[in-house]
C-alpha cells in the first residue's frame, strides 16, 4: 500500500468551501505532479474530494493573528490534507 496525497486550500475554514489552490504528491509513482502543471482544480470543494474517496487526515487550525499583525497576509490559511492508499 502506498500513499497518494492531495492538499487543498479552501476559501474559508469550512470543508465545503471552494478550492482555491492545490497540490498533489503521488507515492505510487504512477503520476508526477509538479508546480504549475494545471490551471483547473481537481475538485470544486473539499467535500467533493471526500465524495471521491479521499480521506481527510489533517486540517489547518484556526489561529488568531499575532497582536500588531492583524492586517498582515501570509500563507494560504485553510489547508486540508487528504490521502488515498493504493
Amino acid at each position, binding site marked *: 500500500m502506498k500513499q497518494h496525497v492531495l492538499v487543498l486550500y479552501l476559501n474559508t475554514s469550512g470543508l465545503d468551501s471552494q478550492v482555491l489552490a492545490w*497540490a498533489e504528491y503521488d507515492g505510487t509513482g504512477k503520476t508526477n505532479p*509538479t*508546480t504549475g502543471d494545471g490551471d483547473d482544480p481537481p475538485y470544486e470543494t473539499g467535500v467533493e474530494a471526500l465524495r471521491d474517496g479521499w480521506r481527510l487526515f489533517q486540517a489547518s487550525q484556526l489561529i488568531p493573528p499575532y497582536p500588531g499583525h492583524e492586517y498582515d497576509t*501570509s500563507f494560504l490559511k485553510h489547508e486540508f490534507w487528504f490521502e488515498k492508499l493504493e
Partner: protein
Amino acid sequence: MTTTKHLLTSVETARFVANGYHRMDAIVPPGLNERAIPEFDAGQQPHVDYGTPVKDAFPEGSISRALLDIPAVAGALQSLVGPDPTVDHHHVHVREPHEGNAQPLHGDAIIDTRIDAFDVQLMYYPQEVTADMGGTLSVPGSHLRRTNESDTGRYQNLRGQTRLTCPPGTVVLLHHGIWHGGRRNDSDIRRYMYKIRFNPTVPQVRTWDVSDLDDPQVAEALSVFHPWSEHATARLEIYNRIKMWRALTNDPSFDIDYWATRVANRPGRV
C-alpha cells in the same frame, strides 16, 4: 534610460500595486531578440557589482542597455522604481528541454516587508514562449503576502495563476515580492529569460504620469479580488494596497470603501 516619456498612467500603476506586475508584449524589436540568445549562450553578460548605476552597469551597445533604452521599457521602469535606479544583479535563466522539474514557487531574495518602497525585477523573453516551454509561473497579487523565499514551495497550482506564454520580445516588470517560479520545460527547445533587479535611489512617490490620479478606475484597480485569495484575506489585501497607494501618492487620506479609515477611527484617543 533615455526618456521621461512613456510613463505609466495612475490606472496602470494602480494595477501594478494590485497585481504585482506590468506586462509589455513584443515590446523589444526583432533585431535585438535575434542578438540575445547567441549572446546569452556565449555568456557575454558582464559582471555587475551590487548597487551599480545603470549607465555604469551596461555599456553602450550592450543588449542590456539597448533593452533599457526602449522608450516603453524606460518609461515603465521609471514609473515604478523612479529615475536613476541602481542594478542589484542580473542573470540569464535557462529552462533546459525535458529537464524534468519545475522550480518551487518562491519570492526572490529574502522576505521583504517594505510597503513604501520596492524593488522591480525585469524579465525579458527574447523568444516565443509556448505552453510546453516552461514559461514563468507567477501568482498575480501575491507580492504583499509576507512569506520567505521558497517556503511557498508546497503550493503547486492556484486559481488565477499565470503560466506565461508570450511572443518574442516580451518584457514583464515585477514587484520584488511576487510568488513565481520557472515551470517544467516539456518541449525540445531551451527557454531563456533574462532578469535584472533594480533598486530605487529616490522616494517612490508620484514617479508616474499622475494626470489621471483621480480617475475612478484607480480605486477599481486597487480593489480587485484574485481568485486564489481567500475572501476574508482578499479584504486585507485591499487594505494593504491602500497603505501602499497612500505611500506612493503621499496622500494619507486615500481610502477605498472606508476600509482604512474605519479601523483607525478612535475619537478622543491619542
